[in-house]
């Protein structure tokens, strides 16, 4: 009972967020975040359900609960293509991705649990009057994944696991329309929600006591939103061209991921790990808005995105100081999946360099207080959204402090 109340309270906090390549978010465990977001080869606690369900049955305690949030403070700046004296900075709402994991060993070999987390999202506000307002003013994407998971340890060296993903998603997009009325620009707001299915499956291998190898695949989830609200605000004389309570159908693909992780316990105190994370972004070819009622001024809109598949390379480690304290550090390089010629300010995802720190403090044996900090530098780059002839230099900075609790017994 108490747990479900806590879960609801966390859900209520959720806003959108963005930080990783595209609109993928990797904040699913404070310990993993502290180590450059590696996790595929680790079996630390119930968070394995997301990173590699195979690892869950390698966890030592009989019960494991983990919960955390990672408030995102992000800034993207835009400087218009020279010569121009124009620049703008996003005023993004604070994003709060969260996770909750609960798992139990049913037998020594079989474990089960439920993961609830937020692997995709975007929360963006460029303001109403900025120069790219006809492309985007505000966007909020939120996906919450519910993943019941089973994991089976075949022997002491190999374990497998899989989870069914029930993904709920919401989006809300506002942009200006280039039609001028007495009160200035017109605008359109699109908002809707959906729920879809996917899966997450992984294998964990421990050839030696110190070495651990993991492979995990998370399926794509096509978020098909049908009958979303399309609300137009236009001058009265144009109302016939933009039906007031129109509907729109669109699809936002949440890409598949193939992860490979290797970690090695160098000595009693020090562990290091490497993660390779291949994201199948090419599924995001176009963003299509299919309006229920079309008019000559309002055809369906097909917006090229042409994302590319990308490999993220991660490196991290953990140093155990005492029974009560462990510290972590890591980093990664996450190249932008966004095509440079089709770079919309709606998802201003640059080549990201992430640096992380983390620590866990265990006041008692069963409880761990987990903190992390992730700093992401979105490297300055010139980008265009060619179809709208809008371009300039983008740069971003993201600061994500994270707080979590792990309770094992």
């Amino acid at each position, binding site marked *: 009972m108490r747990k479900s109340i806590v879960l609801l309270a966390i859900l209520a906090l959720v806003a959108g967020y963005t930080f990783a390549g595209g609109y993928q978010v990797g904040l699913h465990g404070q310990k993993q975040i502290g180590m450059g977001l590696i996790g595929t080869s680790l079996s630390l606690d119930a968070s394995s359900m997301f990173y590699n369900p195979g690892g869950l049955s390698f966890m030592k305690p009989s019960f494991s609960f983990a919960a955390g949030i990672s408030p995102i403070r992000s800034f993207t700046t835009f400087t218009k293509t020279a010569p121009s004296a124009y620049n703008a900075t996003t005023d993004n709402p604070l994003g709060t991705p969260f996770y909750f994991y609960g798992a139990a060993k049913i037998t020594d070999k079989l474990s089960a649990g439920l993961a609830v987390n937020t692997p995709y999202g975007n929360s963006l506000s460029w303001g109403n009057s900025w120069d790219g307002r006809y492309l985007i003013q505000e966007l909020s994407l939120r996906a919450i994944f519910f993943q019941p998971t089973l994991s089976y340890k075949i022997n002491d060296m190999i374990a497998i696991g899989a989870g069914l993903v029930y993904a709920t998603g919401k989006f809300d997009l506002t942009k200006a329309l280039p039609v001028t009325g*007495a009160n200035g620009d017109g605008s359109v707001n699109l908002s809707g929600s959906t729920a879809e299915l996917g899966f997450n499956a992984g294998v964990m291998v421990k050839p030696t006591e110190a070495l651990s190898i993991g492979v995990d695949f998370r399926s794509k989830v096509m978020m098909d939103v049908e009958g979303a609200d399309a609300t137009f605000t236009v001058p009265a*004389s*144009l109302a016939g061209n933009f039906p007031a309570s129109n509907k729109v159908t669109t699809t936002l693909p949440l890409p598949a991921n193939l992860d490979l992780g290797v970690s090695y316990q160098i000595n009693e105190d020090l562990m290091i790990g490497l993660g390779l994370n291949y994201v199948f972004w090419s599924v995001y070819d176009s963003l299509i808005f299919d309006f229920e009622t079309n008019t000559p001024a309002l055809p369906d809109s097909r917006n090229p995105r042409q994302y590319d598949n990308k490999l993220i390379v991660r490196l991290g480690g953990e140093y155990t100081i005492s029974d009560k304290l462990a*510290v972590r550090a890591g980093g990664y390089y996450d190249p932008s999946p966004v095509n440079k010629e089709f770079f919309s300010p709606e998802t201003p995802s640059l080549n990201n360099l992430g640096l992380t720190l983390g620590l866990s403090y265990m006041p008692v044996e069963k409880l761990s207080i987990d903190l992390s900090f992730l700093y992401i530098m979105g490297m300055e780059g010139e980008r265009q959204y060619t179809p709208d002839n809008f371009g300039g230099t983008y740069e971003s900075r993201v600061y994500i402090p994270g707080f979590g609790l792990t309770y094992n017994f």
Partner: protein
Amino acid sequence: MKKNFLSKYFPLLLMLLVVAACEPKVDEFKATPGSADFSKYVSLGNSLTAGYADGALYTSGQSYSYANIIAGQLAYAGGGDFVQPVVTNEDGLLAGKMKLGIATNCLGVSSLGPVPAGGSPTGLPGAVTPVGYAVNNFGVPGAKSYHLVAPGFGDPAGLFTVPQTANPYFVRFASSATTSVVADAMAANPTFFSLWIGNNDVLVYSTSGGAGDVITSQDLFTGALNGIINTMTAGGAKGVVANIPDVTSIPFFNTIPYNGLVLTEQAQVDALNQAYGSGLLGISFQLGQNPFVIADATSPNGVGIRQLKAGELVLLTLPQDSIRCGGWGSQKPIPGFYILDEAEVGAVKAATSGFNNTLKSLAESKGLAFVDANAFMAEAKSGLVYDGMKFSVTYVTGGIFSLDGVHLTPRGNAIVANHFIEAINEKYGATIPLVNVGDYPGIVFP
């Protein structure tokens, strides 16, 4: 030792980072004048330069003149104040301003279209009251090339001569009764000038359907332009010159199609065919779109009436109710002064081409920046996109041309100003920032 150090300072470091969160710094854009000096900029031209729009010269329209927009950007690189002969009347100096509104036609059908804006334009004689201060914007609505060098073009007495020898807009800011536009512009000691003139040399002829004016001769044009440019550069000023866009591409000539006579009933078709001798006059009708019938004294059938041909242009000023309810274009021929026929279109294009050769070679010989406004017009015909806004030369919805179908909207002016700035940057190695087109208003819908 190491463990102790880490356990002491690591948590502290973590907290410090959380506090340090801040946005990336953006470098301010640094504009440079290159080899030009923008400290005293003057603009010469006609209604386009003055900021005329929607059929009138009015306060906010002037503030969006391309010359004023350019001056605002030159200020980033040493440009000084830019004074315009401000009309303190949003309803217009002279009557004629239009707005978008709902108009009901002779068939009782209401639709969105240009309607008189009303209000209280200043009107004559108040409109010719001198502003009493020196200006930088020498754009004079109605001016042709040779008007800029004509002494007395600002003489109040010349407003009442027949033919009129003065221009009411120049009377407002001419320094004396005998001065010329170019003389006053030079008296301002400009370090930099822009010149966009010659449009009216073909446009006035065109907007009168080839009936109420003559196209300036090539010799007169060349002489006038030599005079203007030689004078303006005599003191060492640098500048930018724009050529003349093909006026036959503007909405004024392209909104009513040559075959805009729509017949929906066979009885109408039969009656018209019979009335015109069942094809004997080379005039025939069918269901759907038909070429309008116009008056043409030189028509091949010898009766002074013929149907329009593709490529011939109908003026925006053609009274549409006369088509709908008065039998114009079907039972009665449309008067020739509402039509720019094949020969007239050819004359306009030929003159424009000749004028543009003169403008380009003069700009080159004097080392001035050159704006190919004609090329821009050709691009606009196939559509333009800036920052998510789509533009075309379509009347009203195209967004470039104001409600008079000839002059520009504020956004149209911003696009033109950017072309001037690009030409200046290229010629003089300057880095004047462009404006955001979206910062300026479009056509306002009710």
